[in-house]
């Protein structure tokens, strides 16, 4: 059973004064992975860039560079894709691997976790601190009740996600890209990126490989109401490694395993490696707050403009 989605992600920056040059990099094109195929994709940038270049990055993500040299006061970056998703509709947490988490850590540590040397290098990488994921005592303290001796790895993942969902509050605007795990734990509120980073930090601290996934989740309107178009959002979750299951995708923000309502853009060590859009602008004025519209709907719905 597959589902096909139409995805529109539009980012708009409106500036007070003309921007003469705008350089940007996007990771807005869904990559192909088992359970997901990108059928069609376009990236529109307005004003039209004088230079663009796409390539597949170190992590295998599809990324595009652009350079706009026409003076402008508004930059609009719109990515449109059609994606076929064949993930399980209802993944079962009970079927996750049951190896004690310490053994998982040991197998990675001793390099016997997998026979694939390249995969092993990636596992080693997923243990290390990264720009947004640090090793701190606060994270260790938070993780302690979950990482009890001998606990099966599957349970560890499910419980961490559950505790993040229940012990921390989702509050839009409560954090920025600079918020650390310690700050997050102090204020007990954050957004999806923070929750993903916290779970990654907790896992890595215990020798368990974890990486960051960037993408979207389809939102469904309350019964009897029509879906608000363009009101979806970028999303982020965790990819954790467990022997036998490989990379397990789990979403601490929604306390669930990733299913067929999710669309993946790409992954990295943390947000730093896969922001949907980053850029540098040249202007005499100041930068601007972006506004973002995301629309993820079953293919064939009326197009979102």
């Amino acid at each position, binding site marked *: 059973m597959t589902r096909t989605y139409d995805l529109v992600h539009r*980012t708009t*920056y409106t500036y007070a004064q003309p921007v*003469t*040059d*705008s*350089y*940007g*990099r996007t990771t807005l094109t869904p990559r192909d992975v088992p359970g997901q195929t990108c059928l069609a994709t376009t990236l529109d940038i307005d004003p039209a860039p*004088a*230079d663009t*270049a796409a*390539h597949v*990055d*170190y*992590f295998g993500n599809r990324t595009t*560079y652009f*350079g706009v*040299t026409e003076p402008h006061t508004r930059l609009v970056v719109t990515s449109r894709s059609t994606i076929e998703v064949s993930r399980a509709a209802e993944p079962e947490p009970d079927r996750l691997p049951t190896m004690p988490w310490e053994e998982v850590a040991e197998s990675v540590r001793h*390099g016997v976790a997998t026979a694939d*040397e*390249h995969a*092993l*290098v990636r596992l*080693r*990488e997923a243990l*290390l*601190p990264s720009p947004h994921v640090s*090793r701190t005592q606060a994270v260790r303290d938070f993780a302690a009740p979950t990482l009890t001796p001998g606990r099966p790895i599957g349970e560890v993942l499910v419980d961490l996600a559950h505790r993040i969902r229940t012990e921390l509050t989702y509050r*839009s*605007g409560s*954090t*920025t*890209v600079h918020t650390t795990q310690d700050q997050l734990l102090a204020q007990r509120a954050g*957004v999806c*990126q923070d929750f993903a980073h916290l779970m990654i930090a907790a896992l890595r601290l215990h020798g368990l490989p974890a990486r960051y996934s960037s993408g979207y989740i389809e939102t469904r309107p309350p019964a009897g109401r029509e879906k608000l178009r*363009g*009101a979806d*959002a*970028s999303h982020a979750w965790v990819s954790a490694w467990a022997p036998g299951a490989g990379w397990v995708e789990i979403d601490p923000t929604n306390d669930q395993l990733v299913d067929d309502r999710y669309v993946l853009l790409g992954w990295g060590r943390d*947000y730093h*490696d896969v*922001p*949907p*859009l*980053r*850029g*540098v*602008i*040249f*202007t*005499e004025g*100041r*930068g*601007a*707050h*972006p*506004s*973002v*519209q*995301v629309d993820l709907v079953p293919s064939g719905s009326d197009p979102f403009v």
Partner: protein
Amino acid sequence: MGQTLPVTDLLSTPVRPADGSDAGVTLDDFRPDWSRVVDPGDEPTPADLARAHAEAERLLADHGVTYGADAPDGGAHPWRLDPAPVVVDEPEWTALDAGLVQRAELLDAVLQDVYGARRLLTDQLLPPTTVLAHPGFLRQVDGLRMPGGRELVLTATDLVRDGSGRWCAVADRTQAPSGAAYAMEDRRVVAQVMAGTYRQASIQRLGPFFHALRQALRDAAPRESDEPRVALLSSGPASETAFDQAYLASMLGLPLVEGGDLLVREGRVWMRGLDGLERVDVLLRRVDAEWCDPLDLRAGSRLGVPGLVRAVRAGTVSLVNPLGSSVLENPALLAYLPRLARTVLDQDLLLPSAATWWCGEDASRQHVLTNLARLVLLPTARGTDGGAILGWTLGHRERADLADRITAEPWAWVGQEPVGPAGPVVDGTPVGVGSDLPTADGVGPADLGPRAAVLRTFAVAHRSTYTVMAGGLARVAPQAVVSSATGATAKDVWVLASSAEPVAETADEAPAETLVARVPASGISPRTAENLYWMGRYAERAEDRTRVLRVVADRWDDFHARPASVGGRALTVLLTSLTPDALPTEHDGGTPSGPAASASDPAGPVASRPAVAAPPALRALALDPRREGTVARSVRRLGACAAAVRDQLSTDTFGPIARIERALRDERARSRTPRSASSAADLRAVTAGLRPALDGVLEGLLAVAGIAAEGLVRDVGWRLLDAGRRIERAQHLVESLQATLVDQRAVTVDRLVLESVLTTHESVITARRRYQGGARVPQVLDLLVLDRTNPRSLAYQLDRVQEDLAAVPVAGASTDQRDHLLGDVVALVEELDPVAVSVVGTDGRRTRLAETLESMRWRLRSAADEIEKVHFVRPAPGQALEDLWDAPA
């Protein structure tokens, strides 16, 4: 200079070289041995060396050789050089050369693999975490390749001698190795101050290395460019090694550019020129990779160029070294080089490294933790934790803390065996200070020897191999850690040449022919243009101020004791009109002065009051570098502008500037200005010694002007330099005429005032010859404003500045406003009737003259503003787009 000369010479080939046996050498074997280089009897005496040391210090100052950031409060300190060279025998060097070539080839192979197939990681020849956890591993440039087959183009290795006197590598510098130009400068200076010895000795030359570097830069160019444009990407005058960067650029004939001088368009790197963009094919990179691109690398970096990584990926530009090369600086690599040499090169590693343990491996970590008290601990990422920690200097607590840090992030640390000619003294006296000195486990090397000494060697990819500089940068320090930042002293390194091999006499000169095509002269960036223009302005400003002060000081000496005399009254006019900023303000020193005090004391000679109430701060106007508009301040700014465009200037430019600074500094140190007019002696002291100091300053400034006039081609750069000088002189002239000619005074007083004005404008001789009846105001105006043949006149400055600016290309901006303003001043000059404007009104003022001069003054100021706007406009720095972290719809 009375320096203590080193009694040991830790880097030269030992007197009794290591023979490969384990006997080792003793400290006694490390002593200067002149018999290697000169005939018996010709050894330099201690007095010779002391003289050479003083001479070297002076030469280095003249060349403006510094190390350290050029902070406003003078963070850069003079480069220290001991003229007694390190001398290395040819056989020993030949072996070292081979070891260094092999090492460069090995590191190159590792770099290719790390950003390519990563076989070394997957095969566990190099533990993956050594690379993956290192901040120098830049995932953004994964898979990129340099044209020419080499990834590591330029590498430096820091070497010490171990306990047996053999060479031992302690670190590799692969990011953007610094020091090659310092080494060249050391050679130039030592060759000069030790000329006798240098000529007798048969020494290998440094030149071939720089030739090879030029060729390597060419070879690195993208294939499509037949005549590659190469530039040196500098981290700017605020960099610690700014001299090294600028001097290297000028030696190689490369334009010195900063991130802001470059931009990426159409997938290429371009240099901003005054009249448009010019392509750049190769960048010799002196900016750490992470800072090179605020888009793809560190956000917010102002040292880089957004899009640079994209251009590298497009293959349109090559960076030397490539981005990501600093991954090789990880000291953990030292532990694996022998294994890698065998696997990758199928050879044994020729040059050993200091014994190093990477804590990411369990056994190694155990070893390090057990031996913390006698090892050197290094973070794998340079610069993150302040560098080397000497285990034996730590107290109990500190050691425990360090052990905790190592245990928490073991991959981030290595332990290294201390190496030094004195040998690690494991059973020595416990070293350490403080109350928690350990009792049982506190044994460590007592010292690394009387001095620590490090030799930095350089190798560059050349043809199919590497060319090693025959010499290098030696540095010695009184403490265990050798760092230029903490006061190491450099030494030249003489590698002896076998006498059979003739050494070309001139090979140490900077290579004469230019292998790398130079960017056309018009290709200077707006930043360079602005620095040249301001060089002209500051040079002229310093000169103008100096001439005024000389005249005022002379009058002060002649007349300050006779305030009521004609001369005394003229002195007051000069003080109040030409140097008003020297006069005490009302609140200065608590001495009542100024108009209010004068008015309340009608008995006193009003005219003389300011001069007597408190002595004018004439010395401060010359000497105080913190005060705007002083000679010292302008000279300092002149030096800063010159240093920022060192690649454009002859080395000779820096000597006079350094000498002026020195003269001002000496005079500052010599005596201080009295605070109040307590005695006649104090009043005499206002100018005591000032005149000779000012003469010295003027002499230096004339040398600067002479070098500019006679030593520079008349290209755009020179035009800007000259335009700056002309604009400054024109402004100064008009303002000084405004201050002195508008008010009428007694004829006898005015005669002296006018003569002084003519003197400050270097026109008094002409005036005497031309106007034998004495120059009155109309004559002064004729000579200083109208006479187009007088190089000091306003008309002359206007001619020159218009001619200069016409030769400077302009991109985009309109020059109408600038030309209009200058044209207006020309018209005002042409319309000026010197006799008519000199008519004095009933109020004792020359109102028409005042109006005309004021019209000129503001137009000149506005024209100068326009020049800045038209020619030097640089884009505002780039800003990072705000993140989409939590963006609202």
